[in-house]
């Protein structure tokens, strides 16, 4: 059925969209004095957002070579590639986009930095603090973004800013939450149909599921990224951490020992040795195939199951960070860091592209099927509408509604301090998963295992502190 608007036949949807745009435009007219300051004008409800464009602050030309990961949600990459090329076409820049597996990106950056040539702007899914001496300080870019869209989310800022040097070694426009994923059909019979809410409930419920149904719990203690994330979440929930907010090593504490002791009980009652062998895909595969009762991961495994195993997908539900004796916190699952190496000449084009990308982050969120969250919350005004009425077929449609409140229970790697070069090396050499694994397997007491980890962490911190890259 068509309606008439300005003398042209329009569909009802177009009329409603125009009305909504007019209403939004009116309400933000003051804020729109600066271009892009209000972000994209978006249609209501669950439709794809409209994209916005504003002229760059300087005249651009030449080439822009972008390197980023192959997204876990492939529809994002299809959108991004076209989005980047469209922008290049509008501003007169020839844009090239390369995607590679996320595990290869640090090696690639190291090679390009050593060679002094390569891509102009590079994205990774964790902090890139180790490259600080070879990348541009992006303070001007972050300031510009803050001016346009308000204050950046703290966990993104802490993952891109080094307080010891007062430099933004990266630009962090987005992140991804890391909730608990559970199988409702397994948790209902143990009296927890809405999943566990505390680490104690997790132990109790998972142990009963394993003894009654033979289905184990899936928290990794292996040398891979997901183990690194979930074990830090457990530590924080117990009041433990690797460093304090001033970057002083504080890992050897009664709280860390208590977290390790808890994990030992959890392993003995609810897990099997497979958790020591996992790679980053293992817990996803285990959940999708129905072999695990609970994992901690982003929503991508469930999105995969929606296509490959809908029955399992409908049975997978989510919970926020579990509460421990001190708090309830989870590590961010993915943290986007964009860097511009010092050898790059297309600096202006790189910065303008990042501003344009951030202004349209709602599209990144939408085309990643609600995987990517923005560091400037106001840029995705429809996110809560999407989360409460999933446009991509969640059953029930409000399955992801709990993510509307993900910020308070999410923290950066290195919490309560910043994600520094030292934190990055501790992360990448798997000190924390090995600390837990040694105690859980009985190779050392929890106290000894924590003390050994402290020795390794302290050596790493001392080294980078001497290089002037870590405070404390």
């Amino acid at each position: 059925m068509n309606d008439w608007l300005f003398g042209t036949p329009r569909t009802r949807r177009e009329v409603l969209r125009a009305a909504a745009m007019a209403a939004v435009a009116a309400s933000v007219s003051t804020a729109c004095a600066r271009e892009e300051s209000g972000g994209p004008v978006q249609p209501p409800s669950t439709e794809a957002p409209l994209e916005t464009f504003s002229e760059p602050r300087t005249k651009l030309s030449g080439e822009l070579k972008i390197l980023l990961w192959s997204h876990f949600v492939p529809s994002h990459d299809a959108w991004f590639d076209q989005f980047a090329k469209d922008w290049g076409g509008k501003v007169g820049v020839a844009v090239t986009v390369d995607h590679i597996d996320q595990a290869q990106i640090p090696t690639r950056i190291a090679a390009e930095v050593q060679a002094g040539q390569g891509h102009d702007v590079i994205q990774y899914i964790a902090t890139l603090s180790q490259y600080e001496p070879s990348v541009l300080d992006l303070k001007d870019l972050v300031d510009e973004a803050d001016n346009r869209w308000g204050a950046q989310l703290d966990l993104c800022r802490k993952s891109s800013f080094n307080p010891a040097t007062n430099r933004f070694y990266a630009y962090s426009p987005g992140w991804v939450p890391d909730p608990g994923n559970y199988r409702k059909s397994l948790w209902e019979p143990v009296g927890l149909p809405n999943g566990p809410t505390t680490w104690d409930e997790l132990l109790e419920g998972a142990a009963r599921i394993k003894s009654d149904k033979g289905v184990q719990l899936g928290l990794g203690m292996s040398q891979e990224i997901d183990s690194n994330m979930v074990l830090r979440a457990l530590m924080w929930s117990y009041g433990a951490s690797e460093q304090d907010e001033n970057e002083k090593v504080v890992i050897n504490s009664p709280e860390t020992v208590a977290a390790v002791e808890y994990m030992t009980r959890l392993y003995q009652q609810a897990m099997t040795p497979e958790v020591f062998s996992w790679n980053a895909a293992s817990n996803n595969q285990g959940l999708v195939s129905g072999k695990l009762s609970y994992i901690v991961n982003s929503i991508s495994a469930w999105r995969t199951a929606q296509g490959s195993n809908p029955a399992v997908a409908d049975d997978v539900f989510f919970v926020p960070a579990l509460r421990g004796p001190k708090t309830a916190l989870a590590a961010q699952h993915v943290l986007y860091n964009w860097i511009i190496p010092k050898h790059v000449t297309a600096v202006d084009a790189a910065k303008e592209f990042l501003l344009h990308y951030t202004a349209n982050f709602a599209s990144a969120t939408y085309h990643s099927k609600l995987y990517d969250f923005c560091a400037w919350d106001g840029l995705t005004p429809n996110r809560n509408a999407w989360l409460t009425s999933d446009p991509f077929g969640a059953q029930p449609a409000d399955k992801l509604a709990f993510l509307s409140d993900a910020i308070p229970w999410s923290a950066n790697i290195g919490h309560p301090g910043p994600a520094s070069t030292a934190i990055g090396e501790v992360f990448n050499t798997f000190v924390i998963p090995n600390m837990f694994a040694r105690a859980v397997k009985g190779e050392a007491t929890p106290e000894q295992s924590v003390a050994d980890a402290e020795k390794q962490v302290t050596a790493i911190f001392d080294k980078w502190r001497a290089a002037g890259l870590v405070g404390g």
Partner: protein
Amino acid sequence: MTTRISDRAGVLAWLFLLPSVLYIVALVASPFVLAIAFALSDVSAGDPSYDYVGGRNFERVFDDPVFWRSLGNTFVFTGISMVLIVVLGKVLANILVADFRGKWLVRFLVLLPWTTPVALSSISWLWLLDSIYSPIDWVLRFFGFLGPGENLYWLGQPGLAMTSVIAVHVWRLTPLAAVIMMAGLVAIPRDIEEAATVDGAGYWRRMFEIKIPLVLPVAAVAALFGAVFTFTDMAVVRVLTRGGPNDATQVLASWAFYRGIEGGDVGQGAAVALFLFPLLLAAAIAILRVVRRIEVW
């Protein structure tokens, strides 16, 4: 009377050698010198500027328990792999020189592991050794060696993980050893074996008193290749276990990579990697001496 360059043996010899020399200088000597320079510096993944720090990286490496564990693992990994590669290579070589129908197919299948890219083959092994879906576990369950729902967790138990890493390496390198030893077997003069047969020597006697002694220098070369390739390889470890569980399969090459590239400390990574050199040099000298002694006999 003038001589053309092509008639001067010394010059011609150097001309022929030059590509090899350039290749070795560019791809072996330069990286080696660079590794020494890095090991004595504070170069990091994010900061290529060079500052000399003396032996500090080595001191830190020696203080690192993971380094000592990696060193021990490297010896275990290399020693066991080398013995298995030589023994199985010899068995395969005997099969390859024998005359039978479909020999070409067998030769093709034997060489397949060596020609398959290591990343690809390791990923196939990753599936074979999967903690839940391992077909090996399925077969063991089928024959009653494992109970229902029981798994061995090949990559989750330290001993089994090291066994798995060694098995994949042996699977990859045995064809190379087999081809080297096949060349040795083919080179044995037929009249020696025929004379022994006429004198009444049986299969096993000919094997242990003629074939093996004569093929021993070639077997030593196969062992040297196996040792060098095993000692310096990190691909299998990286794909299968990433050094886990709890660094139980970490080897020097993989630890150098994790410390130097992923961890960002190129100087310390170079120091770890450099530790491979004296060990490899000692192994190469020892094996080549053995070969020379065997040849002199």
